[in-house]
């Protein structure tokens, strides 16, 4: 009757599989002649595995709430880094640094969110912070692929709008959770103030031509007021506004016309504007069910394959089944996050976790849908998978917040 009888009830099995996938995947890429047997590939794989083991063990042993999200996040990260290694080694090496930073940010976000108790009182700070980020972007920003949404400080560039999304969710959560109930200037109810803030932020994003983020932000707002706002007229009004703005955009904005035209028929202008989406579809169509095999495909024909279009590369080399698996993983993460939101007892926590989850799910839907030409393409990154420092770090930070909320609920429900 010793330790040998204390069998683990299954928490380790998926972890073993994850490790197995990484060992096989990075090992395979290492023996690819084209990579010149670069040892850094193995170090990259080792870094992913070590970070996973550290974080997972910390979550399980430290009773830091949900144990499943991190498992799935690391499956996505593994797939993403494997593909990046295969697309462009230097991207992969930079990405792994960002993932390590992201891991640290995850714990920082966890502890800060867990321990600070006045988040729900700071709506004006979120608003001012978001506005400042927008102003900085407009003044100092650089234009990348038609959207002016990057700031470069020395060698580091980042996308402030990624941070703004979180601030925006926190700001909305103050209002929806009821913590911000005092009318502004004695007259303006929070409901209208939140509406105003939404439209101000969307206005800034229009100036930056960041259509993807507009879609995500406005949808977060709509879902939030659907769940929380008893005044259903407000929701109806906003949906009308969305339709009208959409139609006006379609009528008058060249950018949007091009996107819609490319969605309906990329083939007629294939050498020019339809090029990218057509290349993406070529990649997907070449993969079949099981893919051409890691390193066998030609994902580099797709412009931007390392960031927005990485899903097409996954479909080419890991097949449609690989693509469906990624969609499933994202859905399972979203499902867990929704559950955390439902279990959360604090209204602010509930609203924040709901908002973050909607952001995460919609972002995934919009970019995957765009890449496979189910919906018009709007350039945003695929969380945890696409190359990109800001995207990775902010995704980790938002999962840190969710993790903190789940830990709060678990500890309240479990021990006293």
């Amino acid at each position, binding site marked *: 009757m010793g330790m040998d*009888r*204390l069998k*683990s*009830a299954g928490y380790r099995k998926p972890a073993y599989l994850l490790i197995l996938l990484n060992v096989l995947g990075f090992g395979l890429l290492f023996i690819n002649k084209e990579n010149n047997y670069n040892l850094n590939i193995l170090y990259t794989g080792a870094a992913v595995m070590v970070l996973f083991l550290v974080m997972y063990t910390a979550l*399980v042993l430290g009773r830091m709430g949900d144990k499943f999200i991190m498992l799935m996040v690391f499956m996505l990260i593994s797939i993403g880094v494997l593909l990046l290694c295969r697309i462009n080694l230097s991207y992969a090496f930079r990405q792994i640094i960002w993932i390590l930073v992201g891991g640290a940010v995850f714990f920082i976000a966890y502890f800060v969110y867990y321990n600070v108790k006045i988040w729900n009182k700071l709506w004006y700070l979120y608003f001012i912070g978001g506005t400042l980020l927008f102003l900085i972007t407009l003044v100092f920003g650089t234009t990348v692929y038609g959207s002016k949404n990057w700031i470069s400080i020395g060698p580091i560039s980042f996308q402030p709008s990624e941070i703004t999304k979180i601030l925006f969710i926190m700001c909305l959560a103050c209002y929806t959770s009821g913590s911000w109930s005092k009318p502004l200037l004695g007259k303006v109810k929070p409901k209208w103030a939140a509406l105003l803030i939404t439209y101000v932020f969307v206005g800034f994003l229009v100036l930056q031509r960041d259509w993807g983020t507009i879609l995500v932000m406005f949808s977060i707002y709509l879902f939030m007021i659907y769940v929380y706002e008893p005044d259903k007229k407000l929701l109806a009004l906003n949906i009308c506004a969305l339709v009208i703005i959409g139609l006006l955009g379609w009528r008058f904005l060249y950018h949007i016309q091009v996107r819609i035209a490319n969605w309906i028929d990329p083939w007629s202008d294939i050498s020019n504007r339809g090029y990218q989406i057509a290349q993406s579809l070529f990649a997907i169509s070449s993969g079949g069910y099981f893919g051409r095999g890691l390193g*066998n495909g030609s994902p580099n024909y797709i412009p931007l394959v390392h960031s927005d279009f990485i899903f097409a590369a996954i479909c080419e080399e890991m097949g449609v089944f690989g693509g469906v698996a990624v969609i499933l993983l994202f859905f399972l993460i979203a499902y867990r996050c929704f559950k955390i939101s439902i279990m959360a007892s604090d209204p602010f926590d509930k609203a924040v976790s709901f908002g973050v989850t909607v952001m995460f799910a919609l972002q995934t839907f919009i970019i995957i849908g765009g890449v496979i030409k189910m919906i018009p393409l709007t350039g945003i990154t695929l969380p945890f998978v696409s190359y990109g420092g800001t995207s990775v770090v902010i995704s980790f930070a938002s999962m840190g917040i969710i993790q903190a909320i789940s830990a709060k609920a678990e500890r309240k429900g*479990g021990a006293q």
Partner: protein
Amino acid sequence: MTVYSFISTILSYVFTVIIYVFIIFVIRLIYLDVKKMSRFEDNSIADEACASLRPVKSKTEPRSPLKRRYNIYGEAVIGRNPECDIVINESFVSQKHLIIWYEGGEWYLEDLGSRNGTTINGKRILNEVILDPEDVISIGGLNFVFET
């Protein structure tokens, strides 16, 4: 066709299998987790899903007398909270202290993050564990024998 692309093609099937088995494991764990939380009462429980806890001699004397036997039908949460399936009103027992449940032929026990912890056969447990008949479960100072 090079050797590399051959290996890679073979591995593409392996990868697909690994990822899907991984997903199936995770879904199973989530399912167990959700089931544990839902704490349903079900009268139509098969015999093998019935077990019991029998208090035995302990270091600590209970403040209120214990029953001779606590029955578990499929699943039971043990704690101080009156909503628990098995209520043990002692100060060293947490509101919701631990859960025992039956799943696919095995009995499982998990500590629900109690303050004073749970031991089985003298070992403090951290993860879920599989229970065997005659295991001694200690909650605070109270000992129970697990019987099926």
